[in-house]
């Protein structure tokens, strides 16, 4: 835009210090972006290590291929899980894309509490540093779930890790709280709830989950700490306590947390599908409400993580039944996206490829979830690679695909530069094929009974494991292409116009990148978000 009234948010205040003290939601989003990318790299390298270890069965009892022994494997496994869950996927979309685009999409100047927003980044970094520090103290080997009674007895620095998770939980709560108030109170004139873009709806539903579920994780982790320090016995069967109660408390948070991970991804997909089909989204209201629906149902299904852990038969049946209900709002979204594609004028650019990849992979992830919700089947599949494949199809095939797609989609807006379409598409090809090569064999391995979380296996599983490991290399190459695309785009990308994709939502109606105040004139909204001709 030739005649802008101010500089872009990137150049408004110079100097590195101004970034670390900025209250601007866009700059805070970039802070999160840098941190999360770093953790993603660390967690990704660990994943490659795990797959390398599983390339072949071990020749002698307790000596690994790559990793020293079983203990080392358990530790890398724990850090891979904890880093990817708490530091990559949970903050990924809400804290980066949500922070940047939620205020823009509803025509606000900032989030409701900018100071709290910056604080939550520092709180997050404090927790994350503490978690990383445990790696150098005494490595955790409990898995990211900290199940009692093992977590009470193991010699590793569980207390420190639990404090770290508690602190990161606080950060998550503050972010959620901020977004809820922003959506409730800061919408531009004319921006009614049912004119909000679907990405905003998804972030809003996520925020509700963050605020309602995370406190219970807080008290659970505090009690686990007390358990280790004082041996209070609440979760310790030896002292009359109930380890299954720990699992109830833990999953009361951590199941909704799974939706904290996937709901924002669904929001991104809604944006991508409609933009790159150049067509009004089909069933706007249904998609918006299904986000709330998924958030609501998610509070009633946590017991499906506990089918074989000794909860009562009645509870198992109830949880099994309610879990299948999750399929309803999820399917509503899928069918609405499909209907949006129908007779749209589709551009197969990188973001759209990621969106289509999401739909394909998430469908597999979702449907295998329904299989696992059946108690009788779950007894066989529980703790096998089937489960590993299932949640990677949802978390990686779903959320990570959406992060990548959303990131390319909004890249011009965030940085004011265009990315290289060719390398972005190449990156997608490698990630998409590599992902399927890695995880599809794991469904078969799981069905054949290969248990998860072990650093060794019997020779019968070798072929499929080899294929799976080769797939992980393809994913790695794909992400290298992605990294290259980002760096190339940042350094030598062409200047981005305000609205390169012809999108209709508000964030595209301002400059690229936006100024500090987001809009030169306060927007007045007179129509829904996706009024394509």
């Amino acid at each position, binding site marked *: 835009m030739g005649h802008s009234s101010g500089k872009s948010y990137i150049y408004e205040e110079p100097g590195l210090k101004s970034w670390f003290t900025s209250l601007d939601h866009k700059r805070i989003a970039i802070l999160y972006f840098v941190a999360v990318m770093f953790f993603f790299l660390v967690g990704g390298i660990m994943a490659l290590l795990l797959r390398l270890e599983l390339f072949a069965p071990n020749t002698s009892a307790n000596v690994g291929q790559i990793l020293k022994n079983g203990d080392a494997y358990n530790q890398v496994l724990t850090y891979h899980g904890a880093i990817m869950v708490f530091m990559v996927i949970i903050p990924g979309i809400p804290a980066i894309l949500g922070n940047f685009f939620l205020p823009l999409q509803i025509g606000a100047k900032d989030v409701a509490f900018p100071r709290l927003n910056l604080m939550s980044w520092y709180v997050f970094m404090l927790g994350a540093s503490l978690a990383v520090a445990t790696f150098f103290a005494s490595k955790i080997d409990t898995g990211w779930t900290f199940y009692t009674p093992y977590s009470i007895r193991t010699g590793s620095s569980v207390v420190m890790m639990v404090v770290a998770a508690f602190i990161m939980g606080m950060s998550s709560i503050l972010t959620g709280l901020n977004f809820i108030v922003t959506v*409730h109170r800061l919408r531009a*004139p004319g921006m009614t709830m049912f004119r909000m873009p679907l990405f905003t709806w998804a972030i809003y539903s996520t925020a509700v989950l963050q605020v*309602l*579920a995370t406190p*219970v994780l807080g008290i659970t982790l505090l009690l686990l700490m007390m358990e280790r320090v004082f041996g209070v016995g609440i979760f310790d*069967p030896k002292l*009359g306590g*109930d380890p*299954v*109660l720990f699992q*109830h*408390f833990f999953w*009361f948070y951590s199941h909704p947390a799974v939706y904290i991970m996937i709901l924002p991804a669904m929001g991104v997909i809604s944006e991508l599908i409609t933009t790159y089909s150049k067509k009004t989204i089909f069933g706007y209201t249904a998609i918006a409400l299904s986000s709330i629906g998924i958030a609501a149902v998610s*509070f*009633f299904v*946590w*017991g499906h993580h506990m089918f074989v852990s*000794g*909860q*009562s*038969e*009645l*509870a198992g049946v*109830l*949880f099994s039944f309610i879990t299948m209900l999750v399929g309803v709002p999820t399917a509503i979204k899928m069918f609405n996206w499909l209907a949006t594609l129908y007779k749209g004028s589709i551009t197969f650019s990188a973001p759209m490829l990621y969106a289509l990849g999401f739909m394909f992979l998430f469908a597999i992830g979702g449907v295998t979830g329904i299989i696992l919700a059946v108690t009788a089947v779950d007894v066989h599949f529980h703790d096998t690679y089937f489960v590993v494949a299932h949640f990677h199809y949802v978390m990686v095939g779903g959320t990570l695909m959406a992060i990548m797609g959303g990131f390319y989609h909004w890249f011009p807006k965030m940085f004011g530069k265009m990315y290289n379409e060719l390398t972005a598409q190449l990156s997608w090809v490698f990630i998409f094929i590599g992902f399927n090569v890695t995880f599809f064999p794991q469904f078969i391995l799981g069905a054949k009974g290969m248990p998860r979380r072990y650093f060794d296996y019997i020779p019968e599983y070798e072929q499929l494991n080899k294929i799976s490991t080769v797939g992980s290399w393809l994913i790695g190459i794909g992400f290298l292409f992605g990294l290259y695309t980002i760096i190339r785009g940042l350094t030598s990308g062409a200047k981005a116009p305000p609205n390169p994709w012809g999108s209709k939502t508000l964030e595209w109606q301002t400059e690229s990148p936006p100024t500090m105040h987001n809009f030169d004139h*306060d927007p*007045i909204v007179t129509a829904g978000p996706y009024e394509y001709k």
Partner: protein
Amino acid sequence: MANNQSHHNDHGAHAEPHVTPLRTYLNVGAALFALTFLTIIAHVFKAHYLPLAPFIAFGIAAIKAFLVMAWFMHLKYDEPSNRVIFALGFFGLAVLFAFCVIDIFTRVAQGTVL
């Protein structure tokens, strides 16, 4: 939305905050004191109605909690949305409680507890 800095709020939803008269605070405080004494009286004589004792103690506590929430915390005069938000917390708690109890006490019936 031309000039949005005028004193008159065009939204209408957020009226001026309500000021509770001092007299009301005194009454609520007195009621809370009286209910606390009532709790203790009930406790001293609880041998006479033992199975009901917890219900009476928590019933009184619930009334006290209502008084604190409605007047001290101003929920009575607050926006309905804030009442809904606060209620959501208790609802979440009820869900956690309900499912934990469903599991543990049907395990007792099954004979597989702990």
